[in-house]
């Protein structure tokens, strides 16, 4: 496996974080109407998983899809326009934040129903198996295991030996339990989440979602296994970012500060603790600075570049017009011959 370029990895994680911060600010400013979910605190998962994939693979996500799409290579400006319901969005404003999809990147449809994408991912994996190349990745949260769709999709994956990687992003657990031990997840009565796929003969493991290096190793190993050996399940244990606890996301202590990785402390105690113990971006950055692969000045330059890219995306989205009323009637059915 190729060793990732640390600067690229930091930039990829920063791109998601800065994008999500702007979403929160735009929502608070009343620039888009609905509820939404941000990926802050889980960036390392999407970035390392997508880095292990090929262009022909399929990615299925959830209502919390911004991070997966950005990691897959989606354009921040078209994504932001979609979130604002503008004509410049990938679906011309018809998907909004919850169902964002980019067909050309192998993200054909995104379900905002808990567990909704898992059967779709199994089907895409079936198509990959039939054509003899490619695989599917399904990202979902811990609550998906409370849905029958998840169980049924795992049955198909195991029975048909499909090339599918189930990535359960469990963001419900405290930091000390990320690496080992039992935990209380949402409301799943299983002692361990991985017990469920294992009962269906799907090999499953746990990885620390705050450790980008561990994640890269994990996906770098599992993706080839899936291609040649069938379904795998990984539970990524993340600790929820404090801004994701309120009903509507908030920015505790404002936008993320690079200085927090270099000795400065955040105002809010819960955020400060989360940054120290659970922030995959901050922890990765510190490690690379410590081992001399990156300097603070380089990180600052990366952040400035990413911020400008996201600012440009916001500008694009804001000036993009709303779709014409006629757009409401388009794409109910695909037209023309196949």
């Amino acid at each position, binding site marked *: 496996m190729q060793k990732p370029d640390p600067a690229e990895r930091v930039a990829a994680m920063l791109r998601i974080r800065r994008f999500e911060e702007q979403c929160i600010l735009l929502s608070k400013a009343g620039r888009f109407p609905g509820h939404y979910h941000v990926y802050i605190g889980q960036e390392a998962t999407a970035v390392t998983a997508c880095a292990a994939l090929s262009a022909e693979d399929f990615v299925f996500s959830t209502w919390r899809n911004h991070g997966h799409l950005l990691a897959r290579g989606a354009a921040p400006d078209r994504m932001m326009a979609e979130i604002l319901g503008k004509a410049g969005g990938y679906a011309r404003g*018809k998907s909004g934040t919850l169902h964002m999809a980019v067909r050309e990147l192998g993200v054909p449809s995104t379900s905002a129903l808990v567990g909704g994408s898992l059967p779709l991912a199994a089907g895409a994996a079936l198509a990959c198996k039939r054509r003899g190349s490619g695989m599917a990745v399904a990202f979902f949260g811990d609550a998906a295991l409370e849905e029958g769709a998840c169980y049924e999709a795992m049955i198909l994956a195991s029975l048909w030996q499909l090339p599918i990687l189930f990535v359960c992003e469990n963001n419900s657990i405290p930091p000390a339990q990320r690496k080992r031990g039992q935990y209380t997840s949402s409301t799943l009565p299983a002692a361990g989440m991985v017990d469920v796929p294992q009962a269906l003969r799907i090999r499953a493991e746990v990885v620390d979602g705050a450790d980008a290096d561990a994640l890269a190793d994990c996906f770098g190993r599992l993706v080839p296994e899936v291609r040649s050996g069938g379904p795998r399940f990984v539970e990524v244990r993340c600790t929820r970012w404090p801004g994701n606890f309120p009903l509507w996301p908030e920015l505790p202590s404002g936008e993320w500060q690079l200085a927090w990785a270099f000795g400065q402390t955040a105002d809010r105690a819960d955020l400060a603790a989360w940054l120290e113990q659970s922030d995959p971006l901050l922890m990765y950055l510190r490690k690379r600075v410590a081992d001399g692969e990156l300097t603070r000045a380089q990180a600052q330059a990366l952040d400035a570049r990413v911020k400008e890219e996201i600012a440009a995306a916001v500008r694009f989205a804001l000036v993009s017009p709303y779709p014409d009323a006629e757009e409401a009637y388009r*794409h109910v059915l695909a037209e023309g011959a196949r």
Partner: protein
Amino acid sequence: MRISFAEGLARAISESLAADPRVLLIGSGFVGLNTEARALLEPALREFSDRILVAPVSELALAGAGIGAALAGQRPAVDLSTGSFIFQAFAQVVNEAANVHYMSGGQSVAPVTFCSLAGMRGAGAAQHSHRTQAMLGQVPGLQILLPGGADDAYHLLKWALLESRNPAVFISHALLLGETAELTEGAPMLPVGQARIRREGRDVSVIASSITVPRALAAAQAMEREHGVSVEVVDLRSIAPLDRNTVLKSVAKTGRAVIADECNRSFGVAAEIAATLAEEGLASLKAPVRRVTVPDVPVPYSPPLEAELTVTAEKIVAAVLHVLGPR
């Protein structure tokens, strides 16, 4: 060549598998508990066994896998067996398949076919007798194919498997499997979205679909024979798309309409046709329309109770006489 409805299904499946390697079958029931019809399917299931997936009893994921495979370039048919079982798969059929193209702003297509054997089939009772077309008709993005004869069983299923660009729910009926029709080899299909005039007539239009088509035809024969009344029978063939024009043209000609529909009375297919006639065809009506439907009750098990609710040729005859008025 005269073929049965079951033969039509078997031919459509077999020819589609042979014509396009992307066609695959998720499950292989399709004709339910009918052993004769199953025997007709056997050769195709043997010949193309590599494209027929063993399906666990996981309707929700099977439907979703069909959609996902379609999104990724395959052309799957998912056997959902008895029509009522589509409820086990509803989240995927209604909330995923139907929305894929629209939510992606036209980026993605999901040409998947959900096959079900719906309707009041005799002793199915409340949990195996649903007619799901009207409730599915409330879901934009789905095509709902509803063959009323063997010819359309063949044509519509083959079209769904080979030509359609959108998700389709193909609803056949257990009591239609033995019905026969003439099929001309190689003749072009009446396009999907066009109703079929099954019998031409002058005095009354009977608008029918699925199992009510042969019953409407029987009623039309009885009216001719016993009352000298000429009944036109319109077979809707699909309710999404719905061919309102053919219905309106027929009623413009006859001036009278009876709608025979196996859905429950309220909010059924008949209700939509009646609303169309009220909005756009009132000037041609010489009498109020009459619906022959299933009362708004669950379907009971006991044969005389089921018969009480069934849309029969006799009930259609009575409705035709009613719209003709005293003569």
